């Protein structure tokens, strides 16, 4: 009896692990993340990836943060009906066919189409605080990341802790810009209003920041002429 139980347990473990690995096994004709990274700009790419956050939908186009266990893929203005957009919940596996492009340093997939597949994966935030001033940071572009123990700095000469729009020319509901430092260096962070609008907790949290606050943050490692994280969570310590 014991032998049977042991065999059954072994079988169940084997099946469980097989199930785990199959969820990350790429289908025929699909690139690994390494192959995607090596692909030339403007070339056709096919990837299997998992939705991590939805930024926007408009005019049958969706902009989505996605990631697999090896890296991230930013899908810009991907063809998507409103009905399908609703199906793109966090973790949803999709097969994406499009073209690799770069805009102001942000590597992305454009002119893409997709199909939903079976499988789910939700990325854990990778702590990149120590990489902020290092060249290797770009290897994690578009990934879900965290920043720990940073200090809120004045966003401009007026001493404000945040700005509506990059220079303060906006209003409530627009993107929020704020600065935080670590290790003597200051970096700019953004609450992208399409990704996290003014009704979200992170939008309210940033509006409540004070210069000098110690904060932990999570977000996506977006790029615009350098690193420009799109923050989705801020916790004051």
């Amino acid at each position, binding site marked *: 009896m014991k032998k049977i139980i042991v065999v059954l347990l072994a079988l169940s473990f084997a099946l469980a692990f097989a199930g785990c690995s199959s969820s990350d096994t790429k289908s025929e004709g699909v690139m690994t993340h390494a192959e995607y990274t090596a692909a030339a700009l*403007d*070339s*056709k790419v096919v990837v299997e990836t998992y939705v991590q956050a939805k930024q926007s939908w408009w*005019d*049958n186009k969706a902009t989505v943060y996605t990631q697999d266990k090896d890296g991230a893929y930013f899908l810009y203005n991907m063809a998507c009906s409103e009905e399908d957009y609703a199906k793109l919940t966090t973790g949803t596996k999709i097969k994406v066919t499009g*073209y690799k*492009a770069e*805009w*102001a340093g942000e590597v992305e997939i454009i*002119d893409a189409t997709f199909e939903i597949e079976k499988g789910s994966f939700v990325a854990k935030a990778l702590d990149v605080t120590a990489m902020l001033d290092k060249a290797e940071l770009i290897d994690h572009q578009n990934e879900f990341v965290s920043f720990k123990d940073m200090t809120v700095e004045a966003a401009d000469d007026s001493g404000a802790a945040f700005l509506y*729009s*990059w*220079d*303060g*020319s*906006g*209003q409530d509901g*627009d993107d929020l810009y704020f600065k935080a430092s670590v290790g003597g260096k200051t970096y700019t962070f953004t609450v992208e209003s399409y990704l996290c609008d003014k009704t979200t907790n992170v939008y309210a949290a940033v509006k409540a920041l004070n210069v000098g606050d110690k904060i932990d943050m999570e977000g996506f490692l977006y790029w*615009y*002429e*350098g690193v420009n994280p799109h923050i989705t969570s801020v916790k004051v310590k």
Partner: protein
Amino acid sequence: MLLAALMLLLAGGCHGSRGLEPFVMPEEFDLSLRHEIVFWAKNDTNKNQTRIYEQAIADFEKLYPNIDVNLRPYTDYGRIYNDVITNIATGTTPNVCITYPDHIATYLTGVNVVLPLDGLLEDERYGLGGSMLKYDSPSFAEVMPQFMAECRIDGHYYAVPFMRSTEACYVNKTYVEKLGYTLPEVLTWDFVWEVAEAAMAKDGSGNYAVNGQDIMIPFIYKSTDNMMIQMLRQYGGGYATAEGEVLIFNDTTRELLYTVAEHAESRAFSTFKISSYPANFLNAGQCIFAVDSTAGATWMGTDAPLSDISADKLVRFETAVMTVPQVDPAAPQMISQGPSVCVFNKSDQQEVLASWLFAQYLLTDGVQTAYSETEGYVPVTATAQNSAEYRDYLARGGEDLSEHYEVKIKAARLLLDNIGNTFVTPVYNGSASLRDAAGQMIEEVTKSVRRQETVDDEYIEQLYGRVNALYRLDQKNAAGGGAERERLGPLPQTAKLLLAGLAAIWAFIALYAGITQVKKWKNRHI
């Protein structure tokens, strides 16, 4: 009771199609009535512009203490357009709005939504230069006629111009000369293409010889809509008639697309949508010809007051501000663009008049000069253009790197010197879609050749068909068609309830009538 309910519902249903009553000028503006005016204003992501709007509002409210103006700043014309369309459907448009005439043409599909200004402009008391105004307003004749004409749609004025700009080619003169060329007095397409291709030469280490970097896109165009429109105008190709007939799918367009494809394939040409802001590449020494609005001049050049790239990426070079490339340098042609102001109709005529008073205030010299000096804009009135303050401002170009930033003032001068060489495209319901389509063809051809696709006659024919269908250019009043219905989304719940109510009432009436008929029939036959 049922009939009364039905009439009410029917009246409610008709209200949307009939719209508001046309505006009738009140006997006088009643200063004892309070008004809250909503002003949707566009800025170029420039806090100085927001500040000037706020100052203008504060000054206006001092003159008219019974009017409160609530500012809602936007940084994107497209967003204003979409929000106005949405708010027309719900009857919640702003009172005053910065917009483009192309967009107004779509707003006009709503009945009495946008205020025709013909009567107001000429009103002796409250019109331009009116006797009852509490500020010095320019007369009708003092608003630049070319700019005023751009606000005329279907024979009526539906807006007043607020600021005007055109496009400029910001040139890295240092690199042009390094490549062995001398800038001509007027840029031509042939010159730009030739220098752009020359800049693609690489050195022994694989970097571009002209800048020693691994990135060089010699020619970047911000607005490909404008690029196609201006090329067609200069080459004599068709675009559209005033009546809205689309002429763009012609042989001139085909030839222009082949030229674009040739230089996109060599990577000597790219666009904002494909690569990013021309200013960022120009200032990093990675672009030689950057075409953008004169209203983007403060971003252009090594010493630009505004910059999105880090200081360590800036490269020092001399910036020349030139007209966009031309076919015939002796007869330059360039687009006129920039914000206009429209007023939305409301049921309260005093409120509408209050809105007009504020809209008109934006044409006063103080507002005109202050706003135009934030960027390479030009005031739309002769009084502001000729004012001592503005003349002094122009004369001081290069004195500093902020208010008198040389590139910005040169950009403004470029338009002032070429007002007679500007043009606009026909405005009609759907003209905004045609603009998008014009640019889309350049974007698609550029992307295709970068992806090693063949651009030939068959490709162009397919592109024409695709763009025609995508922008519904084969349908009259394209902007009011399916695309907008799609954007407006499903019927609101109130409308669904209304329709359901109507259906239920009609069903009840039909049932009642049926039962009555049956009773009558029975009575007759018993």
